[in-house]
């Protein structure tokens, strides 16, 4: 027990000594901190794109909402439902109701081209035809400017993110799509979810405009409670009149965000690893310099009776402390530079643009700090071993 206490006393006194000498080595220490901060900045920056995209997609669905597609379809693009099928779906058990009837919205979905405000290049934007119940089904849609469209008219309401990203979608403007002009009468928000990247109009107006007859692509429903999903699903999948697949909306969007988020995450990790390699050599250099500059001091401490173990730990702690500072600086810089930055990207699973904000989340920052500490640990280990292994008599002679 006494030995252990003695060991900790040695570690703390040596560590305190090392940390107090950092100002004397501020140049190399600063370069190490900046190197690691740069790695963290890039890592967090890139991964915040993925987390922002995922957040926009996942927040779009709640467990109380479900979407019904034709069996075999993995997206609305490839789905198709007739009016009779929609009626059967609307009558299924488990769907919430209000005074107007079941909270179910039969919808269709087309892709239109609009220029991006930032580059002027065309991008795919979702134009969605909705039923009157769509507002109640989503529950989070708020008109923040103008009004809802009038059913039966060529009017659209535009998601706030779409209005910000694409040209020609300001309130009061007309947009020409195909052979028709559509008047923008409202701007809506939806708690930052994927709907905000869309343009909505009356499904019954969109159907003839796109020669869709009386067909839809999906039915969105609000369940009476999340627990009603099983009954709802069972009733649809066992009904011989239907050939459909019901999916919880939260699961649907999570699945639809995987390709993009995984791609961005992979890119981010590869970039970060390459930069980490550079930062690792920086950290190694710093710690080797630190140890080399104090070779005689460390040897003196060992001559006085301090053990090799505490020497190793104290050098590692210093390296970790520098890495922690670098990680925190990089994380804060990433937060200030990227968090909330708005952009849009194509979702390859729906071929439409999704507008979203970069999200520097606490989880992302924690991962980045762990990454920085790993660089610090590896960067400090070899110099620490060198400090502990150099024969004392040899080290005492070094100037």
């Amino acid at each position, binding site marked *: 027990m*006494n030995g252990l206490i*003695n060991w900790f*006393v*040695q570690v703390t*006194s040596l560590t305190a*000594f090392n940390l*107090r*000498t950092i100002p*004397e080595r501020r140049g190399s220490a600063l370069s190490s901190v900046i190197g690691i901060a740069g790695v963290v900045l890039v890592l967090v920056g890139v991964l915040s794109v993925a987390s922002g995209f995922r957040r926009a997609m996942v927040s779009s669905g709640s467990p109380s909402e479900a979407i019904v597609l034709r069996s075999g379809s993995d997206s609305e693009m490839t789905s198709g439902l007739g009016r009779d099928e929609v009626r059967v779906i609307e009558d299924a058990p488990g769907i919430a109701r209000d005074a107007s009837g079941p909270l179910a919205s039969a919808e269709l979905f087309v892709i239109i081209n609009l220029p991006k405000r930032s580059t002027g290049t065309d991008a795919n934007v979702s134009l969605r035809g909705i039923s009157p119940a769509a507002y109640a089904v989503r529950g989070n849609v708020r008109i923040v400017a103008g009004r809802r469209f009038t059913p039966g008219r060529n009017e659209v309401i535009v998601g706030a993110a779409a209005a910000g990203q694409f040209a020609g979608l300001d309130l009061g403007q007309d947009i020409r799509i195909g052979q028709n002009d559509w008047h923008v009468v409202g701007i809506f928000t939806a708690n930052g979810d994927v709907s905000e990247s869309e343009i909505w109009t009356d499904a019954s107006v969109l159907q003839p405009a796109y020669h869709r007859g009386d067909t839809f692509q999906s039915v969105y429903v609000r369940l009476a409670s999340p627990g009603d999903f099983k009954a709802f699903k069972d009733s649809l999948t066992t009904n011989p009149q239907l050939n459909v697949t019901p999916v919880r909306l939260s699961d649907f969007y999570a699945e639809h965000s995987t390709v993009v988020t995984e791609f961005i995450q992979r890119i981010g990790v590869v970039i970060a690893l390459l930069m980490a390699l550079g930062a690792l050599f920086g950290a190694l250099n710093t710690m080797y310099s630190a140890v080399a500059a104090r070779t*005689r*001091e460390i040897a*003196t*401490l*060992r*001559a*006085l*009776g*301090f*053990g*090799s173990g505490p020497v190793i730990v104290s050098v590692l702690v210093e390296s970790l402390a520098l890495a922690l500072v670098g990680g925190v600086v990089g994380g804060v810089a990433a937060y200030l530079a990227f968090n909330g930055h708005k952009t849009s990207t194509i979702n390859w699973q729906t071929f439409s643009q999704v507008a979203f904000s970069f999200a520097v989340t606490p989880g992302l920052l924690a991962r980045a700090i762990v990454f920085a500490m790993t660089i610090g640990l590896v960067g400090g280990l070899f110099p620490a071993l060198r400090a502990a292994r150099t*024969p*004392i*008599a040899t080290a*005492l002679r070094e100037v």
Partner: protein
Amino acid sequence: MSESQPPLVRVRGVDKVYHRGSEDIHVLLNLDLDVHPGEFLALMGPSGSGKSTLLNLIGGLDRPSQGTIEIGGERIDEISSRQLAAWRARHVGFVFQFYNLMPVMNAERNVELPLLLTHLNRGERRQHVETALHVVGLADRSRHHPRQLSGGEQQRVGIARAIVTDPTLLLCDEPTGDLDRKSGDEILGLLQALNREQGKTIIMVTHDPHAAQRASRIVYLEKGQLVSERPS
């Protein structure tokens, strides 16, 4: 000094060989040496004669290639590195040519360093530090950092650090080698006082015959062997 007592330091048949590539360099050859409690021994000899190597072996900073080293009846050539570190902390005080003080610590903190390896509490450590600094005449400079002290004062701090744990043995490697004559004389006087008044056993490596005169015995080394010895 008491020659009737068994020697405090007993070196027997010690060889020290360094390997440089395929070449073996014999620094010490079959060396025997006794140092009795209370002795002040000066080790002299030309550069490369092996005197610092011998001092390092006696201080447990290095291990002999062959032979035995016994300090206070304990074979230090046989114990593990960890035990050797603990042994050094308990029994040896080192005084270095270039003082080897920690530049970020003031005199008080430098002297306190070896006490961190003991079980003394903060108050007891402070008391020991004050005493050691008083002995070397630097009680009023305790808050000064090394850069604020002269070479002689820094070496006094180094000596205070060496004696603060009341070690069995004081090992000094060229303690006046970096000092002017006046400061060197003061340091030698201090070592002499520690030897005479406090009975400290001191082994000092020096090139300087004037410094060696302060010792009670002088041993000459040449090519790794004792060639002569005489009382000063």
